[in-house]
């Protein structure tokens, strides 16, 4: 599928999840997202890995919501904590909402190459040209950043190991000691990037780069019929949610 279609769908999904506010609309949106998850044909573990780092936060938030929302039938009360029917439904809704948003974002990132996502983001930013936003410069910065994340990652580990080999300690000591320990990591990294920036911009100029105006594209994105299907599903989902939500 076209990454632009997927990116649009993900953003749209976050918008329409606001529409769900009762059991029926939540089950509809659950069904649709589970369909999307199923359609990726990926193992459940991939999605579990997406949810895992946030699971504590999700539970904690739901619990807080459970105890601090009052209304409906009160089952249990102690000091400022109340457990009411309204609180329980609310907590469950929040739990579902968290999980669904993470699931859909995972579908997006797992099924798309970073480069494609960046291209799609650039496409979505183009309307900003009306407001004189330098979209072409932003696109250039984006592709450079994307390209250099892996390289600099290696670089960072190399510098860390090099400094460790001569006694630097990144994981121990008090607050100030640790804050100081970041400098031997950051300064070489920064000097390296200054050098890389000079080299790269010279190389770009030598190859005739004169700004983004009047350039052609090598990587082109193509809309496919699946994107139409996908966006069609979303229209159906929105209509269903609008019908079944309580006003």
């Amino acid at each position, binding site marked *: 599928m076209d990454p632009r279609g997927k*990116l649009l769908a*993900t*953003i749209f999904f*976050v918008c329409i999840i*606001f529409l769900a506010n009762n059991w029926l609309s939540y089950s509809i949106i659950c069904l649709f997202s589970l369909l999307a998850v199923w359609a990726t044909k990926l193992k459940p573990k991939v999605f579990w890995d997406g949810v895992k780092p*946030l699971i504590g936060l999700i539970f904690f*938030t739901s619990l*807080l*919501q459970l105890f*601090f929302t009052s209304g409906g039938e009160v089952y249990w009360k102690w000091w400022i904590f109340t457990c009411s029917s309204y609180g329980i439904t*609310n907590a469950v*809704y929040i739990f579902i*909402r*968290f999980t669904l*948003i*993470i699931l*859909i*974002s*995972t579908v*997006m*990132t*797992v099924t798309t190459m970073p480069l494609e*996502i*960046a291209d799609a*983001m650039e496409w979505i930013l183009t309307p900003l040209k009306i407001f004189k936003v330098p979209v072409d*410069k*932003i696109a*250039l*910065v*984006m*592709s*450079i*950043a*994307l*390209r*250099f*994340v892996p390289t*600099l*990652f290696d670089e960072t580990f190399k510098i860390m190991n090099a400094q460790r080999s001569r006694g630097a300690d*990144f*994981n121990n000591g008090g*607050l100030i000691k*640790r*804050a*100081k320990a*970041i*400098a031997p990591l*950051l*300064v070489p990294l*920064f000097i390296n*990037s*200054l050098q890389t*920036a000079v080299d790269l*911009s010279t190389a*770009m*100029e030598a190859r005739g*780069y*004169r700004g983004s*105006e*009047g350039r052609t594209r090598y990587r082109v994105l193509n809309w496919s019929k699946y994107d139409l299907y996908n966006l069609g599903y979303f229209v159906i989902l929105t209509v269903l949610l609008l019908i079944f939500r309580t006003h």
Partner: protein
Amino acid sequence: MNSKSKQIRGEELRKLVLLGIIVAIKIILSQFSFGPAMVKVGLGFIGSVMLGYLFGPIWGAVGGGISDLISSAIFGNQGGFFIGFTLTAMAAPLIYGLFFYKKPVEIWRIIVSTILVTIIVNIAMNTLWVSLLYGVDLKVALIQRIPKEAIVPWIQMVVIYFVLQALSRVKIKK
């Protein structure tokens, strides 16, 4: 057409490329964290400080926004794609830029800017987004966030002080 004025060359191109690389550094740093398990401090804020200090409020904010977009493209956005968190990522370098860009490194600037970032960005904006996105009560989202935000800024100030000193040394040497 005035195509000549739109051309990027020399100094500006170098700046843009450096911005791209600093954005990459910010993304990498935000994958690291230090501190005891209870209060993990991410290093992403160092990237924000670098962006603000080197490129000023406007380009720093642009860089912050890009860093959020790219890191969500590479690592997946924890907590979902949401434009609000991109705005948050833009606001921090903007504030740091207002305080640090082309200014001498001073203790009060570090303290005031960190407190401002904590209040405006981490407490106000992020809480607002969480409550909007997940339908959590504002009060609930705040309670969950306050303990961490009461501790972390002080650590950040110390780190920022050393980082800025190191950076200004590099800048002078160049």
